[in-house]
């Protein structure tokens, strides 16, 4: 039943250009953000909240801007590989510093790094275009050049393919021993070290992967908007990813996409309804979700008794992030 529902959703996503043509760009934005949210979602599995993943979002977008400027008509695949590679390097560099910290320290340290990048992007005007940012040229795809309209369609399917591929990879990663170790780190870091595993390296591996996901998300959104600006690494951007991840639910990769869809839809319609106060509606929605369905949007069907089999473990556990218990030292005192 769950598999059937999933296939239906994928079919709907494939059909978006035909059934909701005018919404195509919004759809691409939803998917681009979902990619970045997937990265934040991954770290949430270890109970770690990053308030700075916008920095890798920016790395993805700016890499497209620089490569596009240096090489006219760069291929979309080349840009994607470059964005993935560069954000992996950036993720490793930052990750080496932050992977040993937990909870609030982890969150704030990420925030600090992202704001350093923000300042650099803003101040080094001659290199980065300052606050105005850099233009991202429309890339080619496998040697074909596209006009504006057809490129929107191509880009939608490209980001959709990327999103589905990444979702599948993250899903598999979390089932594998290293992904399960990441989840185990949340409940007992002491035991993790005492089965012979480095907690820091476990976080670092996930961190690099999450950086790549954010980088690909940033690349996608950058190409949609045709622009890379310092806003990509501003702290509100990073918080937005956390917000969406919690909204969608941290129990399953689908949550990142559901959250992103609902977030952008609420924002779109709320903005039309209330002009400058769409945050008010968004905030109300988040409060309703947290109070009514601690497992996020993906937990709603189960709460309404629609799905027979819920997730095996307590879905609410996924959202107990801020006050993550750190049992280090428990039972070790004389």
């Amino acid at each position, binding site marked *: 039943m769950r598999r059937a529902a999933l296939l239906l959703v994928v079919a709907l996503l494939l059909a978006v250009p035909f059934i909701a043509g005018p919404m195509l760009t919004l759809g691409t934005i939803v998917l681009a953000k979902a990619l970045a949210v997937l990265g934040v979602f991954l770290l949430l599995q270890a109970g770690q909240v990053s308030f700075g993943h916008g920095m890798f979002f920016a790395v993805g977008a700016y890499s497209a801007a620089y490569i596009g400027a240096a090489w006219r008509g760069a291929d979309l695949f080349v840009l994607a590989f470059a964005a993935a590679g560069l954000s992996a390097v950036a993720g490793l560099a930052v990750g080496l510093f932050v992977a040993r910290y937990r909870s609030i320290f982890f969150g704030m340290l990420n925030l600090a790094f992202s704001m350093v990048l923000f300042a650099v992007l803003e101040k080094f005007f001659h290199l980065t275009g300052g606050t105005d940012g850099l233009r991202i040229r429309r890339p080619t795809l496998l040697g074909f050049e596209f006009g504006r309209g057809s490129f929107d369609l191509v880009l939608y399917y490209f980001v959709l393919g990327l999103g589905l591929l990444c979702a599948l990879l993250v899903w*598999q*990663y979390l*089932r*594998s*021993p*290293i*992904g*399960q*170790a990441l*989840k*185990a780190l*949340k*409940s*007992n870091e*002491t*035991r*993790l*070290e*005492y*089965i*012979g*595993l*480095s907690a820091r390296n476990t976080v670092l591996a996930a961190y690099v992967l999450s950086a790549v996901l954010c980088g690909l998300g940033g690349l996608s959104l950058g190409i949609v908007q045709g622009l890379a600006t310092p806003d990509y690494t501003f702290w509100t951007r990073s918080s937005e990813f956390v917000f969406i991840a919690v909204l969608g639910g941290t129990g399953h990769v689908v949550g990142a996409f559901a959250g992103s869809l609902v977030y952008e839809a609420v924002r779109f319609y709320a903005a039309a309804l209330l002009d400058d106060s769409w945050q008010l509606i968004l905030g109300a929605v988040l409060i309703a979700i947290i109070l009514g369905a601690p497992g996020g949007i993906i937990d709603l069907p189960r709460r309404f008794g629609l799905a027979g089999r819920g997730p095996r*473990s*307590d879905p609410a*556990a996924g959202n107990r992030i801020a006050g993550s218990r750190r*049992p280090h030292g*428990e*039972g*070790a*005192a*004389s």
Partner: protein
Amino acid sequence: MSAVPPFGDPLLSARGLEIRFGGVVAANGIDLDVFEHENLAIIGPNGAGKTTFLNICTGYLTPQAGSVRFEGDELVGQPPRRITRLGIARAFQIPQLFTEHTVLENMLLAAAVRERSWNPFRSLASLPQRGEMLELLDLVGCADLGHKRAADLPEGQRKLVDIAIALALKPRLLLMDEPTSGVASADKFAVMEILVRALRTAKVSSVFVEHDMEMVTRYASRVAVWSQGKIQMTGEPTRVLSDPDVIRTVIGG
């Protein structure tokens, strides 16, 4: 110090361990050898430094002086994960489990680390060690718990699973901190019986901190008595436990 001479080279050998926490001296010149095939019990009053010794041996604490060697490798200064990989596993007084995972997943994670199975395209549940882990669970009397979430187990079973995780690492030496505390007193002997048998089957030597003297007499092959950060006496259980000084410090209080 009267040492009973078990034969061969020691598996683990501690020399001159010293550690102080402020004014409290938790280890004040500890010398101890642990030999292969023995079950060494550590007894002594609260605060004598028994758990501290385990903490030093597993890298959780770094002593201010002294050394611990395990088959030639110096353990002092190494983190717990390296010591674990050298072949020393630990079970805790308060069980340390991955509470959100099932019992079998707990075991499989240990097996995955042991075998270094880091292929991300292979899921934990499909590891080839699955059968081995189920057997091990059976060995510690938890055969039917595999699919239960660790957080949902009663304390006694958590304790057994904690030890099973340690055994899943295929250690040479297992350090246990009060293996039967938290187990209902009616079940204590049955549980310890299971454990000792499991250790023998897996050919694992052990050191265990214990408060129950009857447990010590029955299951330890040797006893070391701790008192104020020092080893007061070591030897064969019946002899040590009938020593008047030991009776005064440990049993008489």
